[in-house]
């Protein structure tokens, strides 16, 4: 019976899990292998006798070297980091206050407002960039980091608000009632009690917001034009595909380096992050 259970566990658990992991990690693996693959190997036919499509025999750093020396990659990395940070911080601050208000304060139209904010989030960016482009031009922010720092919150704030509203609702109301009896104002109770308790939720919202701005493509493509202002996703695509030539090695090296900071942020906060997603607060 024990043996039967063991093969069942393999059938229903380990094998599907392995397939799933293989499926999700393969693009990353492909990216990494391509980044280290020398050009001759890259452009060899798959049908050639010596083809090794799934690994490389002579790993090389020439693509990284080319990327860092031959392009503005480090500048793009810095731009992306700065823009993502500022946009995340703006969105988090607005989202915390808005989320708290929607979760806790009873005011006329609060439910409608909550739904409206969610609907804003559903409007596709591919439509919104048209009016936004007009606003950016009128405010003469085009081709500056501010163009993105101020437009990213248009989709990040609804997102943060919605996520944090849900989190605040899981925090027992008595906590802040007690704080208010203890001598705190409503604002004081929010800042001293609710926000510290909500740190897992706030971190989750922050990581998501950071990732979304880090990966954002269309606004960055439309609002930024000069090479030295670009962000990683746009820079890599627009500068490393020249005409119809794909510099696969450098493209993948850029993608690899570009995804490292996000991966680091994730793993650094993973403990809080998981707690935030499950939203558990116990008194």
């Amino acid at each position, binding site marked *: 019976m024990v043996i039967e259970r063991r093969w069942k566990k393999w059938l229903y658990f380990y094998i599907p899990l392995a397939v799933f992991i293989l499926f999700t990690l393969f693009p990353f693996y492909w990216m990494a292998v391509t980044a280290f693959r020398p050009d001759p190997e890259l452009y060899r036919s798959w049908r050639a006798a010596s083809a090794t499509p799934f690994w490389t025999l002579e790993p090389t750093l020439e693509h990284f070297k080319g990327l860092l020396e031959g392009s503005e990659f480090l500048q793009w990395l810095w731009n992306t980091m700065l823009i993502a940070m500022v946009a995340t911080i703006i969105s988090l601050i607005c989202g915390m206050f808005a989320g708290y208000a929607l979760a806790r304060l009873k005011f006329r139209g609060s439910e409608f407002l909550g739904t409206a904010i969610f609907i804003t989030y559903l409007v596709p960016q591919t439509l919104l960039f048209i009016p936004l482009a007009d606003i950016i031009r009128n405010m003469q922010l085009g081709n500056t980091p501010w163009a993105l720092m101020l437009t990213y919150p248009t989709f990040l704030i609804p997102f943060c608000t919605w996520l944090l509203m849900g989190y605040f609702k899981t925090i027992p109301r*008595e906590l802040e009632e007690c*704080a208010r*009896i203890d001598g705190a*104002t409503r604002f004081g109770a929010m800042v001293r*009690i609710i926000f510290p308790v909500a740190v897992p939720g706030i971190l989750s919202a922050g990581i998501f917001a950071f990732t979304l701005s880090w990966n954002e493509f269309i606004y960055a493509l439309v609002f930024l034009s000069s090479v030295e202002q670009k962000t990683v996703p746009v820079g890599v695509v627009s500068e490393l595909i020249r005409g119809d030539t794909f510099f696969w090695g450098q493209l993948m090296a850029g993608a690899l380096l570009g995804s490292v900071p996000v991966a680091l942020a994730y793993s650094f906060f993973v403990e809080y992050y998981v707690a935030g997603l499950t939203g558990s607060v*116990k*008194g």
Partner: protein
Amino acid sequence: MAEVVLTGINKWYDGKVHAVKDVNLHARDKEFMVFVGPSGCGKTTTLRMIAGLEEISSGEIRIGGRVVNDLPPMDRDIAMVFQNYALYPHKSVYANMAFGLQMRKFPKGEIEKRVQAAAEILGIESLLERKPRQLSGGQRQRVALGRAIVRHPQLFLFDEPLSNLDAKLRVQMRVELKRLHERLETTAIYVTHDQVEAMTLGDRVVVMKDGVVQQVGEPMALYSRPANRFVAGFIGSPAMNFAEVTISESGGGLWAEASGIRIKVPPASAASLRPHTGKRATLGVRPEALRIANGSDPAEYLFDATVDVVEPLGSEILLNLTAGTNALVARVDPAVNVKTHERVRLAFDPARLHFFDHATESAI
């Protein structure tokens, strides 16, 4: 040290639900007052209005002579203990207890002194560095109490503070709460749905139902002179037995008659019951006012019943009986030897009979 006066307090939710109806109460200085009633009776809402966590629809609340209707909770000089303790999970026990004092800008030395003193009273000195999640239920309860007493407020509010504890701990904490109150001599208002807690803790008990105060009184007064059928049934365990009776007059005396029971109305109640002659009324008798008849009992207060279930509790035996269509519970001496299905003769204690108006349910 303060008295609390509620005058004509009403609470409406969204103009539709009338949760608290015209409550007038006066908790004296240093008194331990308990609000008790079934869930949804408005007791917690009333408490929250006193705390300032809930707006008052109409009426006036005074704490220590000061009208507090429009004061925020922080300015009412009160402390509250919540059912789920509401300890700040990110703060240590010490910081939890010190928070209220810090908010009021007490000097550091004074805060430390007060927290130490409170911790000593509650026996939690060794837990001060811990976080709430590292504490057991009873310890959390103590910390919540400590957080309330360090502030030396003029009024304590308790919202079912013991209901999350297991039965044994609840009894223990009940005694401690009472001891604490004697020591601190601060006015306290305590909300519970447990009538045993209400009776053991309260100097006076307020029984509420459907947002209306049913009776206010000392525990023994509520027990022996309930104002209406609800209070009679709510206070005391097992609950009072009720039987629908018809009042009739024969042989110069009043008789109360129900299915399987016919007893004489005791002289003390006769005068007030006379107007009800020929009408229906409710007879109430506590399980402890029933006993197995021993031959010397007057015949007017005897009836026969069949034993359905015997519950031997050690110090007493509970008999579940049927007399006619009426189900009754009797609390009898453990020496009594009766078996299920046995037919027994029981005697009422005539001094402990209650009569209630059939329509208004108030005591006659």
